[in-house]
């Protein structure tokens, strides 16, 4: 699959420059799998996710979901995908409409499907993501980044999807909050037996939640394999770089990795 963007022309006499956001990407994600995608910022991760979610169309190639090629379907015929696949985005500020109450935000996928009387479901979802029922009548700006991501997760779970796609859901959060949100996602994916597609630029975060991982660099997938395998024995030079750099960088910045913190809180929970 490829995706090219045309940049704004810089001159009348030269054709518009083309950005190759994705080149020859090919992936298979099995039902129930927790699939990770890692790569540096700007390598095309978000573009890939938007195409998988039917929010953007590839320049060439096919995207099959349950045997249906969604790449060439017009948006109004993607109804089945909208019920099946939901997203959590990166930016907790921009992913919730500042003019909507939390209850309307979470209910949106339900309302889009023509469901009425959504409040009971909204309250159920709020509890599932660890927020108080009072949150329903507040506006997004009254919450912290971590809480907003919880609201995003609640919205994504509202239509009972089978596939959850998360685009760097913890990258914009404080390290301490990161672990909580990460654990919440892992827990919900487990409980609801979801297929997870999880994107991050940080391999240690992906390692914490994913079984299999694809390493991307400059619009290409350079390596795919089991997470542990790539972590322990990276084949491609870029993967090696990623493995070597991420934990050390993180250790230097924060003292500990997000994964360590997550492991700690998990351990703490399991203690009687």
């Amino acid at each position: 699959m490829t995706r090219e963007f045309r940049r704004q022309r810089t001159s009348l006499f030269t054709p518009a420059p083309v950005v190759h956001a994705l080149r020859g990407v090919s992936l298979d994600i099995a039902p129930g799998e927790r699939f990770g995608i890692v790569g540096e910022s700007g390598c095309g991760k978000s573009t890939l996710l938007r195409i998988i979610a039917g929010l953007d169309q590839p320049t060439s190639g096919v995207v099959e979901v349950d045997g249906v090629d969604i790449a060439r379907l017009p948006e109004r015929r993607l109804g089945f995908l909208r019920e099946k696949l939901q997203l959590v985005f990166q930016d907790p500020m921009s992913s919730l409409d500042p003019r909507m109450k939390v209850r309307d935000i979470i209910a949106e996928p339900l309302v889009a499907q023509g469901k009425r009387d959504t409040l009971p479901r909204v309250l159920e979802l709020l509890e599932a993501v660890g927020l108080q029922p009072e949150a329903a009548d507040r506006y997004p700006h009254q919450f912290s980044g971590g809480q907003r991501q919880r609201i995003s997760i609640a919205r994504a779970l509202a239509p009972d999807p089978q596939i959850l796609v998360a685009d760097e859901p913890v990258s914009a959060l404080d390290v301490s909050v990161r672990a909580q949100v990460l654990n919440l996602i892992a827990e919900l994916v487990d409980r609801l037996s979801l297929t997870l597609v999880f994107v991050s630029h940080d391999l240690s975060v992906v390692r914490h939640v994913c079984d299999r991982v694809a390493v991307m660099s400059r619009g290409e997938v350079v390596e795919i394999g089991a997470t542990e395998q790539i972590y322990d024995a990276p084949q491609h030079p870029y993967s090696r770089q990623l493995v070597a750099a991420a934990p050390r960088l993180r250790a230097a910045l924060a003292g500990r990795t997000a994964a360590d913190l997550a492991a700690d809180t998990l351990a703490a929970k399991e203690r009687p």
Partner: protein
Amino acid sequence: MTLPGGLSRLATGLQPASSQRSRRGVSATIAIGGGIVAFIAIVGLLSLVWTPYDPGGIDPTSRLQLSSSAHWLGTDKFGRDVLSLLMAGSRTTLVVGIVAVGVAALIGVPLGIMSAMTTRWWGEAVMRANDLLLAFPALLLAIMLTAVHGQGVVTAMVAIGIASIPSFARVVRSGAIGVMKTEYVLAARAAGRRPLAIAFRHVLPNVTSLIIVQASVSFAIAVLAEAALSYLGLGAPPGTPSWGRMLQEGQELLFVAPRLEVFPGIAIALAVLGLNLLGDGLRDRFDPRLRDRR
């Protein structure tokens, strides 16, 4: 409900939702701007049922009088009471402003939103046509319409309204393009929301503050344009009270009775000031993020 670890703290960290807003009350800008606009509106309504004298009542025996207890702001060259004329003139100003802004918003807002949401060629085409109209002076448009349809308040309102469409479309389009790029619109699309629902539930609410500010700016411009048109004899016809007409009729007596120019001038300036203050104040207040940050 039991919450893991740090979660209970999160819940208590929330701000009380409504008390915050009411405690602070309205800002000084809104109070002053809104006060001026409300005053003009009340005067306009009052003039429907009561003015000190008949605003059209010509009285040759009391021409060009100075302020007195009988005529607070004096009389004009026909012996009409200036205060009564000002009061009745505010009606013309308000009606022209409301209709002109209404026409401009009703056409400009949908155009701006649609051209921001479509990826088709006509989105661009609409905006190029918009630029053409924007480059076209409002007064020239009004003069042309007057030539075709004859002088009158309705022609003036429609002309000013049409001339204000581009600024609405422009402002709304740039705001809507920003909204369309947000992740909450992506999420709405992923939720299966149709474009019309996205336009009404996400785009429109998030550009209302822009529309309100633009409406107040356009209203102020319409007040000035109406005065200019009437001053040129292209707006309110003789017999229709209007601040612009008062300026025109008082012009020849500028050095004899300058107050005949000063009073309508103050009225126009006050209306423009009030509208601009109100627009600024409302913009700050209607944006929930700005509101709670203060």
